[in-house]
């Protein structure tokens, strides 16, 4: 039996199939590492901004100097009028611009509170958020020190991000994207492994290699696939997680178990798609439709609570949603593992369901194709 198992494994995985190893190994690892390094700057800096001076005074110069000295901002454009700066925004040269009004300093000294308009480009949401935060901070620092330097604000608010104290996008988005890439790759590789005997009309050959047993062929197809995907995911996750707060051993085991359960659920789903559609092209398309945009539905960038009810139901059906929940709970630190058990049980339930369904459907297909 073991001999048949290894013969079938050799037939499936060691048959000089470049596409198989591309999907199983090269693409998931390389795209994951690519995405992690994409955010190597960690947070947004040097945002180009512009300024229009209708007042040349010491105060306006001080504001300009403070804006230039801020590491998040880069004063790039000195415009002579509004349309020049607006064009700069449309051309993507600057993100925002500040208009220093006429007689700015004089009006400030007369306590007339002149309003300083700031025009920003909301289309680039994230960059805009960073730029406005820094501009606000520069203006409020200079404003509060102008007349009342010795009277401090009575209440100060400090905002902390638990588990991601530096607001590091490399860790935060990297982890989500790596998980999302493996979510898709687990479905795609299962589709590929279970549909290429059909595409190449070699089902009988594969069943013969497994000693005529469909059960052995099933295990020979599924076990290496799950193990390789899981180990790769765990390795890339560990590499990515070094940008965030470290995990304890228990937390790491919980994340590892969650990842294994997600790989089980995704491979089961991939096998079921082959069982349902009966060909590689259609099954790959279904996998693409579900796996491709999964990250948008899984709630890490746009929270699930803000999605419509039917979208929340769909998000619940995606294994990715539950694994991201486990991973995000683990970065919170000393809260224990209990909150993650529900998500793990759901993932295991999904894995069981999809493998039972996929197994049943594929066995029927194999029986048919073997006779054909």
């Amino acid at each position, binding site marked *: 039996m073991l001999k048949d198992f290894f013969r079938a494994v050799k037939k499936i995985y060691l048959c000089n199939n470049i596409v198989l190893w591309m999907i199983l190994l090269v693409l998931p690892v390389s795209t994951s590492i690519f995405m992690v390094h994409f*955010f190597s700057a960690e947070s947004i800096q040097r945002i180009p901004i512009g300024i229009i001076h209708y007042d040349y005074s010491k105060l306006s110069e001080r504001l300009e100097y403070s804006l230039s000295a801020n590491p998040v901002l880069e004063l790039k454009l000195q415009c002579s009028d509004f349309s020049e700066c607006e064009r700069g925004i449309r*051309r993507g040269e600057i993100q925002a611009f500040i208009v220093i009004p006429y007689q700015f300093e004089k009006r400030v000294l007369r306590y007339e509170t002149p309003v300083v308009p700031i025009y920003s480009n909301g289309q680039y949401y994230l960059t805009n958020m960073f730029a406005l935060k820094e501009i606000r901070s520069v203006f409020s620092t200079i404003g509060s020190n102008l007349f009342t330097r010795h009277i401090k604000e009575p209440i100060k608010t400090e905002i902390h991000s638990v*588990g991601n104290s530096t607001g590091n996008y490399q860790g935060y988005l990297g982890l989500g994207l790596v998980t999302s890439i493996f979510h898709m790759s687990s479905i795609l590789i299962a589709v590929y492994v279970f549909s290429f005997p059909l595409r190449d009309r070699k089902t009988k050959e594969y069943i013969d290699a497994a000693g005529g047993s469909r059960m052995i062929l099933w295990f020979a197809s599924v076990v290496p696939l799950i193990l390789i995907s899981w180990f790769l995911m765990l390795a890339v996750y560990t590499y990515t997680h070094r940008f965030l707060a470290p995990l304890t051993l228990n937390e790491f085991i919980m994340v590892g178990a969650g990842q294994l359960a997600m790989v089980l659920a995704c491979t089961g789903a991939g096998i079921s798609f082959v069982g349902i559609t009966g060909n590689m*092209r259609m099954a790959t398309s279904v996998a693409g439709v579900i796996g491709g945009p999964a990250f948008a539905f899984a709630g890490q960038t746009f929270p699930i609570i803000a999605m419509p009810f039917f979208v929340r139901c769909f998000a619940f059906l995606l294994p990715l949603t539950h694994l991201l929940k486990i991973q995000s709970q683990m970065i919170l630190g000393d809260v224990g593992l209990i909150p993650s058990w529900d998500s793990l049980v759901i993932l295991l339930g999904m894995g069981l369901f999809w493998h039972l369904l996929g197994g049943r459907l594929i066995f029927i297909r194999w029986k048919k194709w073997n006779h054909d």
Partner: protein
Amino acid sequence: MIKRLLKVTFSEWKLFFTDPAAVLLLVIAGFIYAFYYPTPYLKQVVTEAPVGIVDLDKTAMSRQLIQMSRAAQQIDVKYVFDDIHQAKLSMADGNIYGYMIIPNNMERDIRTGQKVTLNVFTHGAYVMLHGNIGTAFATSGLTLGAETKIKRIALDKQVPAKSAMAMRDPFPIQIQTLYNRTGSYSNYVVPSVLVLILQQSLIIGICTLGGARAHRKFRKKKQESAAENESLPYRYFGRSLAYFLHYACFIAFYHFVVYNVFDFPRRGEPLPMIVFAVVFLSASINLGMVLSQVFLRRETGMQIFLFLSIPILFLSNFSWPRYLIPDWMAALSAILPSSYAVPAWLSIQQMGAGIQDASVFLVKMGVQSVIYLGLGLLLSFLRDKSKLKTGDM
């Protein structure tokens, strides 16, 4: 000459609706994805994120701060806890996404002229909520503190309240958002994704249909037909024209229908839109024609490009500025039409830019188009001469 070209064009166009794989990629995908991707963001902005407050002070002032926080639009104060551990557990359970700690003796410290720090903790895995929750709590704290500070200034400087207010905030800022004024998340993400849908489905579709190859095996009965085996220039340009016309319809569909359905701003003028369509589709079609000669199987393009969708989307720099990514990635992005098409589309369609404003991106796509055209013709020529076993193509 034109008749021969159009014969190839219509033969290919017919294939888009008759070959099952092509129907899925070149017809259905463009429609389904355009409505499927925006659904998570139907509410556009995140309001009322569930949060908690740990009140260790339990005074009139702490209750006033809780009331102020309850009034904030971005958050929904679901729980008021007595100790920090309860708040931590609630955040781990996913009931809340952040909490504020009102310290013990806050009111007393403020009244005795001391400085008080309010600590706000947000869930590190949800950066988007971090900003919303932080801003809401910070505004509440600032509002409460402003009253006290104005009183202190008035007493210290012996000025009326109006002057004290002016001294506290001598030049208030007024933020005017020029585009995406409501801060809609769908308006931020979806337009870029729409461009990517067009590019990806087009390239994968061309790879599935074998680009400009002659004697395509999957055509079975039509494998030896005249339109199928025209001379290379007719085959290349005829089929390219079919893709161009088909996808020009998609751009019009997105502009007139999808943008209306999801209430996105539609500022694109006809001329810049036409120029965009010509250069973007030319670059994408020619890139597809190049890649289609590399793969031996119809589905290989789909398997590979599905993995590349995420990196390609981020390389278009709609969310992360180009100057912050490593140089080699920026160089790599130059081979993709979407790297210039996304910013060009955002400039033209979302911001109403003219051809001159978007020219920096349009010219680069034009250059890509010319390079890929030469490469596509060369590879198709070589493939015609090749005796290599070509899978199902």
